[in-house]
């Protein structure tokens, strides 16, 4: 599945019925290849969050097709049976706020996902430690979330998003609470991880600092996406 990235075609989402119906998405097309990081930019009310929720298998689109690798997720009213399992095993999430589980330490916050998937605790923790090392935060493995800085928390959140090796990661404003230096560091990490694990990453952002780092950007306005090439500035 990792070899195909994520693709959507003609994705529509309508809220409500009759006269009060609102078309939040009016036929969105998007394709993100494995190892690619793309930006999704749009003003408030443009349909960004709705698109993210559809991509994250949190809400079902009204029409259109979505594929994850070779797997068809939605196809004009048809959908895979277990969206929860799909989210757990095939989609990683990184949020604006890290939303780490406050009562689990760093390792278990990351290891929780594989544990939920039935992986043995020791194996899940081994995978978590491996990722924490890759993200240069292994030294805080035993710390509780409240003891971490904002940047450290976001790196843990990225590790959690990656731990099940999902083919796609959806990052919702992952740099919003961070300063320029840390924001760019997070994007560099996402780029590294995308290349390393062949993961397709979609970053929803308003952050002017990081927009120039994307090679490809999707603009969304009034429920329709427009694709453009980004500057793709490499972060040192």
């Amino acid at each position, binding site marked *: 599945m990792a070899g195909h990235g994520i693709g959507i075609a003609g994705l529509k989402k309508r809220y409500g019925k009759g006269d009060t119906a609102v078309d939040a998405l009016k036929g969105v097309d998007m394709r993100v290849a494995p190892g690619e990081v793309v930006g999704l930019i749009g003003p408030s009310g443009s349909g*960004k*969050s*709705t698109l*993210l*929720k559809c991509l*994250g298998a*949190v*809400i079902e689109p009204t029409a259109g097709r979505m594929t994850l690798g070779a797997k068809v997720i939605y196809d004009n009213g048809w959908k895979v049976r277990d969206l*929860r*399992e*799909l*989210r*757990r*095993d095939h989609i990683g*999430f990184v*949020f*604006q706020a890290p*939303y780490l*589980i*406050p*009562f*689990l330490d760093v390792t*278990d916050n990351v290891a*929780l*996902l594989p*544990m*939920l*998937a039935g992986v043995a*605790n020791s194996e899940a923790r081994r995978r978590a430690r491996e990722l924490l090392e890759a993200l240069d935060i292994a030294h805080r493995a035993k710390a*509780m979330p409240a003891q971490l800085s904002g940047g450290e928390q976001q790196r843990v959140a990225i590790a*959690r998003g990656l731990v099940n090796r999902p083919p796609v990661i959806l990052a*919702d404003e992952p740099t919003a609470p961070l300063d320029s230096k840390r924001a760019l560091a997070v994007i560099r990490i996402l780029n590294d991880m995308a290349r390393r694990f062949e993961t397709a990453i979609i970053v929803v952002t308003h952050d002017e600092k990081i927009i120039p780092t994307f090679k490809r950007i999707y603009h969304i306005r009034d429920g329709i996406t427009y694709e453009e090439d980004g500057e793709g500035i490499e972060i040192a």
Partner: protein
Amino acid sequence: MISLAGRDILHAWGKFFFTGIGLGLLIGVTLSMAGIYRGMVDDAKALLDNSGADLWVVQRETLGPYAESSSLPDDLWRGLRGLPGVADAANVTYLTMQVRRGNEDVRTMVSGIAPGAPGTPGWPPFLVAGRHLTRSHYEAVADIATGFAIGDRLQIRRNQYTVVGLTRRMVSSNGDPMVFIPLKDAQEAQFLKDNDAIHRQRRSTAENPAFNRPGVPDLLAAVNAAQTESTSVNAVLVRIKAGADATETAETIRRWKRLQVYDREQMEEILVGKLIATSARQIATFLIILAIVSAAIVAFIIYTLTLGKIREIAVLKLIGTKNRTIAAMILQQAIALGLIGFVFGKIVATFWAPHFPKYVLLMPLDSLRGFFVVTAICVLSSLIAIHAALKVDPAEAIGG
């Protein structure tokens, strides 16, 4: 899989611990209420056990001597003793009253016991200090709960008594400690009128020509003497011979003496089923209210704790956590809270039970029942929080 509930409890242990203590105090009160009821039943049974009787002979159509007043002539016991199956019979009086101890009053049940020896029905079956009554007047054996010591003097009506012996767990069905005094003294205390009343009665008798006849000078003195003498007792305690049938003996007494007779089972039914029934219902009502209050508190606490984790629950659902894992987390926390509360409640109930003025009997079976009730309450209380958690939309984690 790690225990999410356990980790949350360890992380916020202070919140759980102190909430558990609060709940534990409530559970402690509940267990104590159950203990008070058990204590009342045990007091009633102790009264019957300590009387040393197999049958209670009382005034006809009464539930005496404990539940209703009963009055019998004090020479009746002789006739009973001669009946087949009867090993021993002895008069007894019971009077609940305030007994003077120094400058304060002690609520006691004063029992007048017939002359005899240890083992006579009505006598305290054992002493923890001192000796039994040996004189006909002005000696007393007191339960240790009265606070009297050997050699203390206590006042009943106009007379002073010296405490010569102490006993333990000799209580009335109300839990009042008992004081044993000689029967004659007890009859006087129970039935004797005060001086003014005697004076008024004598004057009234003297003015009655039927009792004050010029030709019969001793008649008035005889009537006056009869009026001041008390010859009543409350009951006759009967012990039956080994091998004799209590029911048969009771039937013989009913038939030939035309008296009310109760056996042990009937007397227990009177005490537990009638005398303390209202108190038992009162306690049962209070227990139900406490259970409802406990359930409301647990439900509120668990609901509040769950609402405080809505964002985490949304994240857990978004990343694919099963509903049953989230429900189990909340359920386990509710049960853990109940467990902390129950352990603390049991400890405090055990420690404060001896300080109650009346006997509190904490029975292991009640504690076991309490544990299951607490667990059931916690499970039911957590349902509201589980419902709230399962309603959380994973999309809330994404926002927008």
